[in-house]
């Protein structure tokens, strides 16, 4: 089968999955849809691997499929990497969905929308023309919105999340369309090749504004601050597998769009474009990490962490573009590789984390960390996998998160001395922002893992949690396995990433990462041996365990309650809660987070000097939402109310409007004509 046939067959399999989801009886719906999602993922992935291996793009064209413009599919090595990324998340997520089905995914609408959502994500990076891209992009937004809204009948929060997501993604699509139109106006066709050819002859003002407009549009999909507000609303409300797909795969396509615009269509640009991207990426990373550290809702925490990770990837992209603009092409290629590696890693560990969060919600019915605890003992496999994925997100070696951040650090450190003054100021700042981000991320995930999975259960629901079905565990397991493999043997993915980066950067040298077991950067000093690190860690672990056993004195020590402090037994209420763990971070970053503290003291009737009980609540809202979006919404509502005064229901008034407009137009014609 040629790659072209596989692409078409994969798309058809996805549509067939939707048909199965809509037609099968309720018990089999999700399983039927998921099986065809695997077929679609497998076919598209094989086509993508073939393209990455041969480095020859596959080009398909159909004039019949879309009226006026036709459909253009161009699978370049760069797009192929993102097809693989989507497949990497989609296959395990749909496996997990089979076990998760009864939480709203087994309605006809949801079971049909899931395969279509996956298919549109698989096809977006293969779009070869403006019209094809916009159609697929909007289909992706539409089907994901349907999946966010599965719980709309019961949950007001889901309806509100849907409205936020729809508004921001729609506004983003409008920006993207404007950016494309700025470049495509006057070009000989609307295929990306023709647009890129035309864009190279445009003036700097048009090119610059097109890039900024596209950065806003794609940034709203990628969850870049200040367009991230939909993430912490939509991710928690969507079912677990859907939020894994949205966070792992769809958000990465936002970054794909920025690379598509900046490199593929515009062929790179002046330094200020990329320093802007670097700044927005750094702000997103910091802001996301900070909010993740102070969230108490598990999925909200993961959603903010998504903003954090995408911010890092956009930072890497910004550094890459800046270095390309200052003619450091080898380093630029290295930074682009870092950006792509960060996205792939993020897909693996954040997919695993969101699926685990889905498992937790399935087992306990809640995602509030303050209601959880002690889950590691009750769900040993799911818990262990969550801990591994959390360690990967915190960028601990030997897991994959470390590789991406190491590459980003290397490109930042080597890029800092080389370039304009603005860059020399910006890049060291970015390094420190990244360091702070890394620290806050660790705080967030120590909290998520420690409060959620260790200690004692804080509620009856957590007490009675049982291990979830094998399909859900296997779904998470595949992604956790990917985290380990990509961390220990990054050489497995680097050739593909290099091929993709080289196809995005026309005529630039490949980032030569001599990748066997070791990672050796060509052109700059820098090497890493992740496999050896892993072996060393395992050896050290075994040595400590052995030493402890050897040194332990036989007769076994007597077990008593530690730190009993005179109490008979310890209760779950004596542990850290998510809120109390985050309190120091909130206190330090009070000016940014603006938490609302609520301390209720009740006194006995006899004296106000004694306290009978105290309850403490602290809620952290989103400053960007409060400062940027709420005033706009309020103004719109105000004008809407005024506009309602225009329609009092009087026929004469309405006729008068028409008459007045006609007279005004005629007067204008009389004066001007």
């Amino acid at each position: 089968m040629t790659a072209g046939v596989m692409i078409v067959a994969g798309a058809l399999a996805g549509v067939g999955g939707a048909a199965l989801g809509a037609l099968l009886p309720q018990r089999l719906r999700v399983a039927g849809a998921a099986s065809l999602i695997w077929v679609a993922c497998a076919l598209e992935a094989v086509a993508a691997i073939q393209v990455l291996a041969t480095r020859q793009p596959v080009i398909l064209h159909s004039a019949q499929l879309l009226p006026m413009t036709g459909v253009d599919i161009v699978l370049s090595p760069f797009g192929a990497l993102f097809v693989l990324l989507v497949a990497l998340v989609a296959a395990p997520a749909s496996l997990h969905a089979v076990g998760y089905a009864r939480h709203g995914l087994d309605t006809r609408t949801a079971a049909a929308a899931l395969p279509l959502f996956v298919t549109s994500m698989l096809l977006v990076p293969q779009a070869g023309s403006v019209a094809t891209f916009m159609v697929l992009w909007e289909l992706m937004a539409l089907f994901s919105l349907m999946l966010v809204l599965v719980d709309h009948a019961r949950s007001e929060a889901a309806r509100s999340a849907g409205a936020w997501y729809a508004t921001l993604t729609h506004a983003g699509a409008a920006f993207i369309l404007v950016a494309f139109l700025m470049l495509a106006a006057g070009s000989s066709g609307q295929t990306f090749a023709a647009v890129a050819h035309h864009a190279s002859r445009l003036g700097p003002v048009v090119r610059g504004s097109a890039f900024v407009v596209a950065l806003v549009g794609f940034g709203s999909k990628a969850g870049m601050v200040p367009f991230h507000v939909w993430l912490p609303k939509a991710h928690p409300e969507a079912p677990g597998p859907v939020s894994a797909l949205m966070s792992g795969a769809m958000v990465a396509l936002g970054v794909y769009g920025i690379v598509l615009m900046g490199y593929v269509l515009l062929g790179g640009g002046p330094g200020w474009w990329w320093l802007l991207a670097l700044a927005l990426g750094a702000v997103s990373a910091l802001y996301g990490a900070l909010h993740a550290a102070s969230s108490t809702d598990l999925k909200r925490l993961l959603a903010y962490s998504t903003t954090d990770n995408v911010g890092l990837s956009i930072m890497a992209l910004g550094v890459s573009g800046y270095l390309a603009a200052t003619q450091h092409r080898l380093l630029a290629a290295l930074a682009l590789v870092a950006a792509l590696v960060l996205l792939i890693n993020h897909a693996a560990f954040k997919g695993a984390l969101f699926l685990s969060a889905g498992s937790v919600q399935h087992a306990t019915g809640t995602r509030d960390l303050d209601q959880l605890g002690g889950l590691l003992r009750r769900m040993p496999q799911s818990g262990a996998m969550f801990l591994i994925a959390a360690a990967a997100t915190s960028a601990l070696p030997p897991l994959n998160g470390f590789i991406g951040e190491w590459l980003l650090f290397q490109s930042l450190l080597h890029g800092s001395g080389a370039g304009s003054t603005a860059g020399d100021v910006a890049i060291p700042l970015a390094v420190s922002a990244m360091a702070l981000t890394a620290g806050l991320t660790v705080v967030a995930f120590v909290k998520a893992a420690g409060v959620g999975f260790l200690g004692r259960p804080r509620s009856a629901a957590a007490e009675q949690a049982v291990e979830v079905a094998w399909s859900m565990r296997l779904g998470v397991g595949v992604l956790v396995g990917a985290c380990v493999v990509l961390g220990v043997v990054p050489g497995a993915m680097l050739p593909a990433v290099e091929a993709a980066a080289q196809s995005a950067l026309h005529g630039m040298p490949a980032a030569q990462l001599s990748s066997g077991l070791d990672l050796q950067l060509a052109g700059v000093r820098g090497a890493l041996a992740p496999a050896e690190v892993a072996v060393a860690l395992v050896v050290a672990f075994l040595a400590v365990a052995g030493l402890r056993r050897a040194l332990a004195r036989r007769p076994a020590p007597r077990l008593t309650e530690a730190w009993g402090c005179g109490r008979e037994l310890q209760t779950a209420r004596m542990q850290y809660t998510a809120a109390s763990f985050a309190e120091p971070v909130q206190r330090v970053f009070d000016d940014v987070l603006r938490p609302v503290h609520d301390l209720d003291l009740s006194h006995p009737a006899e004296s106000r000097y004694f306290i009978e009980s105290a309850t403490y609540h602290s809620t952290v809202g989103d400053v960007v939402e409060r400062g940027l979006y709420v005033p706009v919404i309020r103004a719109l509502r105000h004008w809407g109310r005024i506009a309602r005064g225009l329609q009092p229901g009087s026929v004469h008034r309405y006729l008068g409007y028409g008459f007045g407009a006609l007279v005004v137009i005629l007067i204008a014609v009389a004066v001007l004509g």
Partner: protein
Amino acid sequence: MTGSFYASALEIAVSVVLLAAMVTLWRRSVRAIVRSLAVQGFGLATVAAVLGFHLGDPGLLVVAALVLGAKAVVIPYLLTRLVRVDPGSRETQPLVNVPASLVAAGALTFLAFAATRSVTAVVPSIAGRLIPVGLASMLVGFFAMFTRRKAVSQIVGLLLVDNGVALVAFLATSGVPLLVELGASLDVVLAVVVLQVLAVQLRTRLGAFDLDQLTELHD
């Protein structure tokens, strides 16, 4: 038909159309308003007939007969039936009073002439010069719809607009194909029938032909 006779006949017929439109604003009695609509339909038919004789186009004469039948006889008859339900109905309180309406009509006529300068410059014939009158009739009709309260006056206003459009069509193209005029006339007659039904419904429900009553449906 000699040139000068043709010119004066056309001018007189067109003036009848505009004057009839003005009269609908001047008279208060609904019966008189319907009568002036019939006069306007007669004027419009005359315009078509004069053009037909001048151009020697028998098709246009058929159109003239059609216009005469539809706009001077059938539609006024239908509206008279509507008036008979409520004889002596008068526009007692138009939103803009009669003298001011007439001044406004004058201003609208002036506006029509000013706005169509570029059109009349392109069509230099006698018929072309008169195009603004059609626009003026349209504007007056719209003004009547906007300011008059009775349902019948509003229907008449709508028909004035339609007659104005038809007049512009006649003058600008020197004759409308029969098929087009047939369609347009049928359309208008049907519209009047529908509006008549609606007006009767309005009266049975609200006890008056007064459109302001409809605001009670709001909220």
